[in-house]
């Protein structure tokens, strides 16, 4: 078909065939030598002295608070493994184990199946063996060929922070998850891996590096000898030092007893979170040892959702703190003179509408300028002024302050909440089912389809406290300080808003007067967020300078009532912790 005809030479064919035969015969003779002539030698070598490479472990890194208090450490337990091919009578042997450990045979068989890795590899079937159990197993050693107990480290939580969601927990790896993990870490089924919270976030740092040890074993897998050559030692994981102050964390936790909600305290200058409480919570010890399915389903079905870290995964309407978003728009864009006053008569009727919108103060605030409107949280002032702002500008400002965006704190599974924009309203209410002016009346009060996480609220107050140059929030004390994108507003804008926040706490009639402190200047904003689940949520977002540093705090009491009445006093207590007035409570 092609131009040139094949003129292969029979001599060349024979040459190549000769090379082929020679090579194959060389290989075969070597195989023959190894397998037939030297068979005895290698057979006994494989039977008597097999070298098994065995993984060795080192402790996982500890988690410490900023003052070096150990929050999470390791706790040695004993586990029972079984090597399938060494079993001589599985039923009878399982019966013995069941008698010793009081675990039913069904349960033992279930675990045997679940963790099975191969006929020659040990499978974990029981955990947390007591010394009594170990000694009974040791006594019946001869009947229990194939069973072995081994040391296995679990996590032990400090009593102070047993219920801090952000710590997270470890979980046993099953075979299905392994292909999705980092191969270089050499994960195996049955090992523990950080599954939530900081344990997950810092898995690579906290995890030990596995070592390898070569052991001579006989045909039954019994260890004869350890070979020290070529061993690779295991190294412990790195410790993780948190920015959390465990005393403050405990103190804040006590302020929320019998309440649902959140307390966040941070250092504005470094972004360090000092306290992150989410109540109700649950005891992290549940992840240790054997957890029954009913414990789990109780935890998961609890209506108060103790399993959720509300700080990053609870979504709430923010309430009046969002009036500041309106204020930023008004001043920065020069839409009104902040000194100008409006008359609050206790209600507002939008032009061309017959609906009445009420101020929370029924008989009105009288003449109100911007400062007083922020300090006393006057609804009517913001109803009237928000009419000057476009919806798109308003939502843009909210997003600049980090809403509907992750704070990128070093925790997994953070939610972003929702800032409704034009598209959202069209999708939700139809093109004609809403009006820009109408929805702004809701949005300016931080109500109606807005959802934020408490951590976003903390970021928001930090943006204000630092005048737009704000350190990123973090829990790892040794993580380098990084900054969010700068928020560039005129000095005068920041001044106006910050003065307003000062008056919230410190002026006569300010809504947050209950938080007022004699020793430090506290700035803040109360919110009372209406919601469909019952009483309003009480919020207080604030910041204060103390000993040259700026600190911020967010208090949220779910369905607690008024922000001024419920959240402000709690905020005040937290400031007192700093000024040492509460030291004796802390040390109790």
């Amino acid at each position, binding site marked *: 078909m092609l131009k040139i005809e094949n003129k292969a030479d029979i001599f060349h064919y024979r040459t190549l065939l000769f090379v082929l035969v020679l090579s194959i015969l060389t290989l075969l003779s*070597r195989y023959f030598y190894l397998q*037939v002539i030297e068979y005895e030698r290698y057979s006994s070598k*494989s039977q008597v002295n097999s070298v098994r490479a065995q993984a060795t472990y080192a402790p996982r890194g500890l988690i410490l608070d900023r003052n070096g208090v150990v929050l999470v450490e390791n706790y040695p337990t004993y586990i029972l493994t079984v090597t399938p091919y060494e079993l001589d009578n599985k039923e009878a042997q399982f019966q013995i184990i069941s008698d010793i450990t009081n675990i039913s045979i069904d349960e033992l068989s279930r675990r045997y199946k679940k963790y099975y890795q191969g006929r020659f590899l040990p499978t974990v079937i029981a955990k947390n063996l007591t010394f009594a159990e170990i000694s009974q197993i040791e006594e019946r050693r001869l009947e229990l060929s194939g069973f072995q107990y081994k040391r296995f480290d679990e996590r032990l939580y400090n009593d102070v922070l047993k219920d801090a969601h952000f710590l997270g927990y470890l979980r046993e790896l099953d075979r299905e998850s392994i292909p999705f993990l980092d191969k270089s870490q050499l994960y195996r089924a049955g090992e523990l891996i950080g599954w939530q919270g900081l344990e997950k976030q810092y898995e690579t740092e906290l995890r030990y590096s596995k070592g390898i040890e070569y052991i001579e074993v006989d045909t039954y897998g019994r260890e004869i000898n350890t070979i020290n050559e070529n061993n690779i030692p295991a190294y412990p994981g790195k410790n993780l030092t948190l920015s959390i102050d465990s005393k403050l964390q405990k103190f804040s936790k006590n302020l929320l007893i019998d309440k649902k909600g959140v307390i966040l305290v941070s250092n504005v200058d470094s972004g360090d979170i000092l306290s992150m409480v989410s109540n109700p919570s649950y005891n992290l010890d549940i992840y240790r040892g054997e957890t029954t399915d009913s414990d789990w389903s109780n935890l998961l079905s609890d209506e108060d959702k103790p399993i959720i870290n509300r700080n990053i995964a609870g979504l709430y309407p923010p309430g009046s703190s969002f009036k500041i978003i309106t204020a930023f728009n008004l001043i920065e864009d020069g839409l009104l003179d902040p000194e100008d006053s409006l008359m609050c008569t206790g209600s507002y009727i939008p032009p061309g509408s017959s609906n009445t919108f009420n101020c929370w103060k029924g008989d009105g605030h009288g003449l109100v300028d911007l400062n007083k409107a922020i300090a006393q949280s006057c609804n009517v002032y913001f109803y009237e002024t928000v009419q000057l702002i476009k919806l798109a500008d308003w939502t843009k400002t909210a997003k600049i302050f980090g809403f509907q965006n992750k704070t990128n704190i070093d925790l997994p599974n953070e939610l972003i909440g929702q800032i409704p924009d034009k598209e959202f309203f069209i999708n939700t209410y139809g093109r004609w089912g809403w009006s820009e002016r109408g929805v702004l009346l809701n949005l300016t009060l931080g109500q109606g389809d807005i959802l934020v996480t408490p951590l976003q609220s903390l970021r928001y107050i930090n943006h204000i406290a630092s005048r737009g140059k704000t350190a990123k929030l973090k829990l790892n004390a040794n993580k380098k300080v990084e900054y969010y994108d700068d928020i560039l507003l005129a000095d005068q804008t920041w001044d106006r808003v910050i003065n307003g926040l000062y008056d919230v706490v410190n002026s006569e009639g300010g809504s947050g007067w209950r938080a007022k402190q004699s020793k430090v200047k506290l700035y803040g904003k109360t919110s009372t967020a209406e919601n469909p689940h019952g009483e309003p949520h009480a919020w207080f977002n604030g910041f204060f300078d103390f000993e040259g540093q700026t600190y911020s705090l967010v208090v949220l009491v779910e369905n607690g009532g008024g922000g001024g009445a419920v959240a402000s006093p709690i905020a005040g207590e937290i400031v007192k912790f700093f000024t040492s007035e509460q030291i004796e409570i802390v040390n109790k």
Partner: protein
Amino acid sequence: MSFFNNYIYGSNEYLGRLYLIVSSLITFGLITLYSISTDPLSISSSFMRQLIFIIFSLFVFFVLNQINVKTIHDNSTLIYIISFLLCFVPFFLTPVENTYRWIDLGFFYIQPGEYLKCATIILIAKYLSNHQLEVKEGYIVFIPILIALLSSFLVLNQPDLGTAVIIFAPVLPMMLWAGVNGFTLFLLIAPAITIIAASNNMIFNIWGVLMFIIFMTFQGSLFKKVLIYFANIFTGLLFPFFWNDFLNGYQRQRFIDFLNPDLDPMGSSYHIIQSITAIGSGGMFGKGWGQGSQTQLKFLPVQESDFILSVIAEEFGFFGIAAIMFLFFMLIKTLLDIAFKSSDYFSSLVIIGLTSILFSHIFVNSAMTIGLMPVKGLPTPFVSAGGSFMLLCFIMLSLVSNLSKN
């Protein structure tokens, strides 16, 4: 049915035999993989993955079977350029295990260097077939060597020493097949042997005498012969100085590390010892399917790909190895037959090239398991687990089938 026969076999009687051998090898590989998989029927086991790769490769095989030989011949330069450029892609991706050899396609990895091997062969075959009248001249060898050098150099930078060496494997057999003068071929391999022989005085002396005899036997200008002879001797004498004195230990180690990025940190001798123990303890008849203690206790590393022959040796014994070696022998012999009977010169050369590649994989891999060669991650054709290479084997198979249908 005759249409089907014609479609698959063309008019060539040997293709049927070839397919039978390949099916046997694949079955052998699958049986072995089933034995070493912990949970063979789960989708992530090497057995199931291999099965999926084979089905996928078969599909590719049937698609490529449609392509005409003339298309391949006429576009050989284009095929080479595309394969060559494809080798640059991994340098723009995140490195896999610190090398730039792989392109991640999501469901599996492909190794463009593998395909460059085929493209290099096709280009060399085209050159040799277009210059058939000049093959008796010495200079004919330069272009094929340059093409192989170019491919090899690129692959070496990925870095992938195994593939870089394998690219050279087809050059000599193809030139021999094309009818290049035997003395010229000897001159090509002489320097390499000289360097290796230089490591030992005794061997070097024997080689010097042997080389002298060969030089005298062949005809040619005496001056040229003397020049080349002494060039060889000097290379051999200088190489140890260069290696020992000119490079310091650290540079030597760097060079070795560069060539062997995947050298096991625990020392490759551990692998070889485990492999030889597994093979030796298999004995004449083997320990039985799924009963190999070395294998099943996971003493044997990378057993599903690099050391699959050791698994076969342990579980099926010398008989198993003899059977698989017989299949390998028949595979290569059948391919040589096809090349010999082929009516077209270009096709015949390409088949010889592909055969050399398959054979060098078989040889290097087997030799490695029994400690005759250093550890190098070259898989065994049709038997080892691994998607990219299995696909390549089927592509080579479809090339052979296309080329022999004339």
